[in-house]
């Protein structure tokens, strides 16, 4: 029975492969569901909770795109990917968009033939030390033992940082973040280094988080953002401007609570254009006028998503830092909706 499906699939494979390459936006609309690639589990970014519902800023972004394109924030098929399978899943068309705390680098953008559509979290590599060590800067770590994950960019960044500052260190290679936390707590190393967001969420799981401190130095740039296949610019535009809409909404003071009254009551022309009461921005994207309104109404603006999943009131407890709006001294800066 299923065999006929397989044979049928084989015969039309060649035809459909050509058709699938063009128009992801139409495919998604026809399917009625967005296939969104996420991590298999990273606290605060994307992880299913006790009831099996995906939570986190990447998951919220997927829902925002689904709300904008399909009008239904629940029409998302979350496809969990590992660090090894994520790029092939996207390239082969198994997923429409990859939102999996993936660092934007030149080789991924150019050589792997993807398009990064912006940054939804500015990360960077940091250090965690026990308070008892009495260290206040990474430059005081001369001669320290440092736990670092092997085979990652963090290992290379670490070597660069210590060589640039002409101080010595002894690396303790570890395999996974879980192992790193255990080794660090057991005293196998003086300091543990990985992405600052990872350090913060790891520290939150310690029995006495207050005994450990994150050093102020951030020694690498890790801009994390969503990406799509190269060459499908209509679809790329939709995803890019959904992200920009969430960021702009925060800047303009539009929240999930007041989006309704803002769309009718606001006198600010940019808010009107964003929420579709004025202009034809949605039509240009191939969507209806309310696309951004739905995304904001269901998921909230960027600031709300941040606060709900990784903000200072959550166990992950990250400060806005670089991820504040440009008006607050951060890096978030959306191009204008015009």
């Amino acid at each position, binding site marked *: 029975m299923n065999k006929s499906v397989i044979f049928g*699939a084989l015969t039309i494979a060649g035809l459909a492969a050509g058709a699938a390459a063009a128009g992801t936006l139409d495919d998604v609309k026809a399917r009625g569901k967005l296939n969104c690639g996420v991590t298999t*589990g990273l606290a605060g970014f994307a992880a299913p909770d006790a009831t099996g519902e995906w939570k986190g800023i990447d998951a919220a972004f997927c829902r925002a795109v689904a709300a904008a394109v399909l009008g239904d924030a629940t029409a998302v098929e979350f496809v969990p990917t590992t660090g090894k399978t994520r790029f092939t899943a996207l390239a082969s068309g198994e997923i429409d968009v990859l939102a999996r705390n993936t660092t934007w680098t030149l080789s991924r953008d150019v050589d792997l033939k993807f398009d990064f559509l912006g940054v939804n979290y500015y990360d960077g590599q940091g250090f965690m030390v026990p308070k008892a060590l009495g260290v206040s800067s990474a430059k005081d770590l001369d001669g320290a033992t440092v736990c670092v994950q092997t085979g990652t960019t963090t290992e290379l960044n670490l070597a660069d940082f210590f060589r640039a500052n002409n101080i010595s260190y002894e690396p303790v290679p570890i395999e996974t973040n879980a192992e790193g936390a255990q080794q660090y707590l057991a005293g196998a190393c003086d300091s543990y280094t990985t992405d600052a967001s990872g350090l913060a969420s790891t520290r939150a799981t310690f029995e006495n988080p207050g005994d450990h401190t994150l050093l102020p130095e951030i020694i690498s740039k890790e801009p994390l953002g969503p990406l799509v296949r190269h060459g499908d610019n209509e679809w790329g535009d939709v995803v890019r401007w959904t992200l920009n809409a969430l960021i702009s909404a925060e800047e303009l003071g539009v929240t999930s609570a007041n989006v309704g009254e803002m769309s009718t009551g606001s006198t600010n022309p940019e808010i009107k254009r964003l929420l579709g009461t004025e202009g034809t921005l949605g039509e240009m994207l191939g969507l209806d006028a309310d696309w951004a309104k739905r995304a904001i109404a269901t998921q909230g603006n960027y600031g709300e998503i941040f606060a709900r999943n990784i903000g200072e009131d959550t166990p992950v407890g990250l400060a806005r830092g670089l991820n504040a709006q440009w008006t607050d001294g951060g890096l978030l800066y959306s191009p204008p909706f015009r």
Partner: protein
Amino acid sequence: MSDTHAHSVAFVRTETLPQAAAPSNAAGPTKWMRDNLFATPANGLLTIAAIYLIYLVLASTLPWMLNGVWNAGSLAECREILQGTSGACFAVLTERWPQLMFGFKYPASEYWRPTLAFVLMFVALAPVLFFDLPRKLLIVTALFPFVAFWLIWGGTVWTPIFALLGVIVGYLVYDRFVAQSFAAGFFGGIAAAIVVWTISGYIVPALAPEQPWLEAVPSRDMGGYMLNMMLGITCVSLSIPLGIILALGRQSSMPLIKWICVIFIEFIRGVPLITLLFVASVMLAYFFPPDQTVDLFLRVVIMITMFSAAYIAEVIRGGLAALPKGQYEAADSLGLDYAQAMRLIILPQALKISIPGIVNIAVGLFKDTTLVSVISMFDIIGMIRGPILASQDWNGLYWELFLFACLVFFVVCYGISQYSQWLERRLATDHR
């Protein structure tokens, strides 16, 4: 004469003494301990050292386990309850029990379906494993794959019915032609089954109701220990027959068949399982259009089955080689053809020799099913490493979760190995 003899000793006991209890150091626990634990001074020293070691292990783990918390909503709550004392936080097992068993996406209202399939599995396995049971029970075994498929995946009932129909038609064709020649029956049966399946591929969608009795659950939503069991059972039961065919094919006198089998076995054995799984999950996606891919579960089953079939083939080849040449000649001299000789004389003996090896592979295969967590399928290890450890409630717990995974695997693997030892004793027909 008798008199002199009677007086040559002063006293003769006429009644037997009542039996006395053995001295305390020659029987009971004391003797057992002296024989087994303290036979020599060196032995005694080792015993004391071992007891001390066991004490050390238990002294550090038992309080931790006995002091365990079974009811809490998060790791932080656990720590609050424990108040700084050492204790395990088993609450994660109680709170996430359905996720550990069924994955995080299987609908909670449908948990009874895989559970029922699990119970039926024992009924279906019983007549295969214990051949003293009535043979009529084999009907349950034959129906089980279709019933279990329907229970676990749900959807229209016509899919398993037509699948079963194909098998029945195939068997009837086989039964009709096998008397003429085994090959005609075998290949004719397969061809007939494929014809039925192809036709039903068009009929089933037409018959399928809008609202099937059992809600359809896609493979992607399967997870937890259920996924390990499904993969383990399916792959073991498929790879044993495939392994037998490969082993026989490798011994075949027909060069084409022989070389196909040799190349297949040697290629698969030369490649790590994890690369095959990556091919299944990643590479095959390139060859199919996005919406028409073969089910991921099916792809993984095919890869694991091929892998273990190649190993089982080699184990069975060992069994075939161990048989004396006289057995083959005896079969020939009885006038049996190839299929009969194999079925009646060679394979029963060769398989008996191969049991420990086959069980070894089966246990290894069952444990290898945890590798699917690397290709982002949420088996029990994938659930632990992904969603559970990434949740803000339980991030930071390792021992309790992985000990639990060890336990559930140990139960099954130990059961399999005990069964194989019983089977060997049961089949021991030689005189030792």
